[in-house]
């Protein structure tokens, strides 16, 4: 025995035309359904090169600093440490590091007491360590901060929809784009996360995908789609 609802639905069948269209899908994909193949962005190697350049400039600056023995080390070293901190936070990391030269010229006027030399050398060593680590371009710092902010929602499983939504909704997206909703593809491997956005303009979503991969343990593919027309803005694989 069937309910009226069941009897009604039993009568709803697809048209012969739709049936033929479905069968022909294998041979062709309709234009409007063709996914836009977005090439993977090239690896961002410039960060490494800028880091190397910043390190070299710092080392040169430190060598110059050493050559002006007689600086009142602790104070000037602190100034230079602050300069290096600024280098971490701005895109012109290498240029900021080059400002070390100015610090060096200041030190020419300084009167150094021998008692301060040990302390100065100690500061220089720590600055050298910092010099090696002053590699971050500003976007890395912002990304790190975002990671810290979203890390309470980190999860091993894409199916953990509550935390996944927190992560996707909490990310900072490129100018002109906002989070809309997510779709989770957990039926089988590869496990995929579709993040739908609204907005317009160009969008580099590499950092956002990095965040997703870092915070969602088993997601393998992250796609960003335009909610207006369903086109793929970016697709990234782990």
């Amino acid at each position, binding site marked *: 025995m069937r309910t009226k609802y069941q009897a009604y639905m039993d009568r709803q069948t697809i048209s012969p035309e739709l049936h033929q269209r479905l069968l022909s899908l294998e041979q062709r994909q309709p234009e409007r*359904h063709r996914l836009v193949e977005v090439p993977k962005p090239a690896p961002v190697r410039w960060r490494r090169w800028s880091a190397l350049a910043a390190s070299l400039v710092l080392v040169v600056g430190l060598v110059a600093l050493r050559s002006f023995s007689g600086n009142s080390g602790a104070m000037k070293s602190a100034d230079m440490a602050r300069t290096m901190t600024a280098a971490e936070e701005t895109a012109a990391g290498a240029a900021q590091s080059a400002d070390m030269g100015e610090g060096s010229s200041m030190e020419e006027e300084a009167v150094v007491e021998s008692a301060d030399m040990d302390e100065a050398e100690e500061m220089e060593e720590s600055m050298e360590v910092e010099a090696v680590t002053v590699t971050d371009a500003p976007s890395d710092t912002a990304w790190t901060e975002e990671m810290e902010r979203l890390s309470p929602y980190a999860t091993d499983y894409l199916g953990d929809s509550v935390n996944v939504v927190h992560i996707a909704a909490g990310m900072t997206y490129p100018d002109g784009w906002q989070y809309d909703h997510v779709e989770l593809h957990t039926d089988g491997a590869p496990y995929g996360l579709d993040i739908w956005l*609204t907005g317009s303009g160009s969008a580099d979503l590499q950092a956002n995908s990095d965040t997703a991969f870092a915070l969602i343990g088993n997601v393998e593919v992250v796609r960003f789609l335009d909610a207006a027309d369903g086109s793929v803005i970016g697709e990234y694989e782990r």
Partner: protein
Amino acid sequence: MCAQESTSFEALVRRQENRVYRTALAILGNVEDAEDQTQDTFLKYLEKRPVFQSQDHENAWMITVTRNGAISKLRLKSRQNLPLSVDIPVPGPEEREELEELFRLPPEDREVIHLFYYEGYSAEEIAKMTGAKAVTVRSRLSRARKKLRSMLEVET
């Protein structure tokens, strides 16, 4: 595409086309959108080529993909401030009133009704497929039974 794969896709279409279409119609409430979603579901299959462990697995996959796509379409229309058109095939006036009552329900309620009363899934299974809590599914079913008693009772 080899002949064997083509045959198996054809077999899948024949097995699932009506299930997919009916699920889409239940959620979307109009034939045109339901046909669009049916096509989208099979395209998704061709894209993903999932390997099914059983017939139940295949059925559940097709339904889940269909409902996800249908819900996305509804959200998109809602954001675009487009009216949600209800255009359902109805043979007679007596049935029209009941069906209009059904399709006045929110899509989330219609989805649950269809999965429970037509596809035969339990509330827990529906909760898993839709991402809702089981208690939410049960409350939607209870509400639907009150409004659509004659439609959802077994005919004698």
